[in-house]
């Protein structure tokens, strides 16, 4: 197959770069327009119009916001720990994006006789005739999503402001509580699938014309995972680290300009990632009717499902007020963790006897 680099055909590298670029640009655009969609949806839910002025029905609003934030003055507080202050937004932003590397967003497509699996960290081995991806994909995602909180805690500490520090502390406490429940609810999925590879998990949900979803086998786990994910990415009703009403703006109080924008991008990128992960684990990933015949339908189904879940996130935000701190801890430790443990035991017992 022509030129080979390190034992792999050139096409492998081209496909890899193309996949990375397409997925990254797509996620970035989704993040940008998620802000617009959120403002629009919440606006209409409050019987308002949302952004209307910039472009047709405000469609250029994200670009205008971006340009505005980019040209704003960059303020670093004189008492802040400069290095940590500068590096914190990056630590928050990067894990949000690199999580996408292991999420399969489509089946295998064939371009110029070369089979390309639509998952960034995966390749099709022609000699073995199968797809190899990160076989501990879920562990990788759990690791990355808990890295994101370091950015927030560091931002809170480095700003040297009491509100920021409170926000950072709350973020870490919340993350620890809900990471546990989220992890425990995924375990019941592994007990069914017997694998940690995300592309395998998606494959296992392809029965019934693409509707053999783990959501129907594990509704409780799916529900809990989604709620815990909302808490992990600090979305309303669990947005205590930001909490405008009591903590000004929480961990990003002292931030301005592009660094502030980075925190926002991280928040929305996390939302995209969490929705994509929920889709992969519980809603059958890119599976759907006719994906076998037309492989390009896979990404379409995947995107549709992710967008639906993102709509649900915004819908929840428009409905529920913020939980109080003790309610949050009560829900995490006294409701979700015991229920997740019971769910694991029940899954184990049923799995043993079937």
């Amino acid at each position, binding site marked *: 197959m022509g030129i080979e680099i390190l034992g792999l055909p050139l096409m492998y590298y081209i496909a890899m770069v193309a996949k990375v670029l397409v997925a990254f640009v797509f996620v970035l655009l989704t993040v940008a327009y998620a802000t617009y969609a959120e403002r629009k*949806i919440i*606006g209409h*839910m409050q*019987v308002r*119009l949302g952004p209307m002025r910039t472009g047709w029905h405000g469609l250029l609003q994200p670009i205008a916001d971006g340009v505005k934030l980019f040209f704003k003055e960059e303020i670093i507080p004189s008492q802040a720990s400069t290095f940590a202050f500068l590096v914190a937004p990056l630590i928050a932003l990067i894990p949000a994006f690199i999580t996408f590397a292991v999420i399969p967003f489509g089946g295998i497509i064939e371009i110029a006789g070369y089979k390309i699996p639509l998952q960034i960290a995966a390749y099709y081995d022609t000699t073995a005739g199968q797809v190899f991806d990160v076989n501990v994909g879920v562990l990788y995602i759990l690791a990355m999503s808990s890295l994101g909180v370091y950015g927030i805690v560091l931002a809170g500490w480095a700003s040297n402001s009491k509100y920021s520090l409170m926000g950072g502390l709350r973020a870490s406490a919340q993350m620890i509580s809900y990471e546990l429940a989220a992890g425990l609810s995924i375990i019941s999925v592994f007990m069914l699938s017997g694998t940690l590879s995300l592309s395998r998990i998606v494959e296992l949900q392809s029965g019934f014309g693409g509707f053999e979803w783990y959501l129907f086998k594990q509704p409780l786990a799916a529900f809990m995972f989604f709620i815990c994910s909302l808490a992990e990415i600090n979305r309303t009703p669990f947005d205590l680290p930001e909490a405008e009403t009591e903590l000004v703006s929480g961990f990003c109080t002292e931030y301005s300009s592009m660094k502030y924008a980075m925190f926002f991008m991280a928040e929305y990128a996390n939302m995209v990632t969490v929705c994509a992960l929920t889709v992969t684990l519980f809603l059958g990933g890119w599976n759907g009717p006719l994906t076998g015949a037309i492989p390009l339908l896979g990404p379409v189904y995947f995107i549709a499902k992710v967008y639906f879940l993102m709509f649900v996130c915004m*819908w*929840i935000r428009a*409905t529920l007020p913020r939980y109080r701190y003790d309610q949050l801890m009560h829900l995490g430790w006294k409701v979700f963790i015991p229920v997740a443990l019971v769910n694991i035991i029940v899954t184990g017992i049923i799995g043993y006897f079937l």
Partner: protein
Amino acid sequence: MNPITPIINGMKITLKHMFMKPVTLQYPTERPKVAKRFRGLHALNVSHDKAKCVACYLCPTVCPAKCITVEAAEDANHDKYASVYEIDMLRCIFCGYCVEACPVDAVKMTEEFELANYNRTDFIYSKERLLVKK
């Protein structure tokens, strides 16, 4: 009480509201329709090409904000008329007492409500600016 039903009910309400017609008024392009008896900017009624005002001083007397200045004078026909009729819009509270008090129906209030200006002197409306436009 179980905690899930109120959440579901709330979600239903928000979803229902999403399909309602928004109440937003796109202000500079869309204009509000003010009520018939809206109390906006004042205007001096005109009859026979002259202001109807007879400078009786009832409006500055009744004005609770003391924003109307009237000075009476005599014209060629020996009729009393207002040589000065000024309303300070920065002090006016748009109560409409001046309209109620007027015995000759000389002052009225229009539907005009955009009264912004760039300097304070522009807020003092002289007689010429208050006369009803033809």
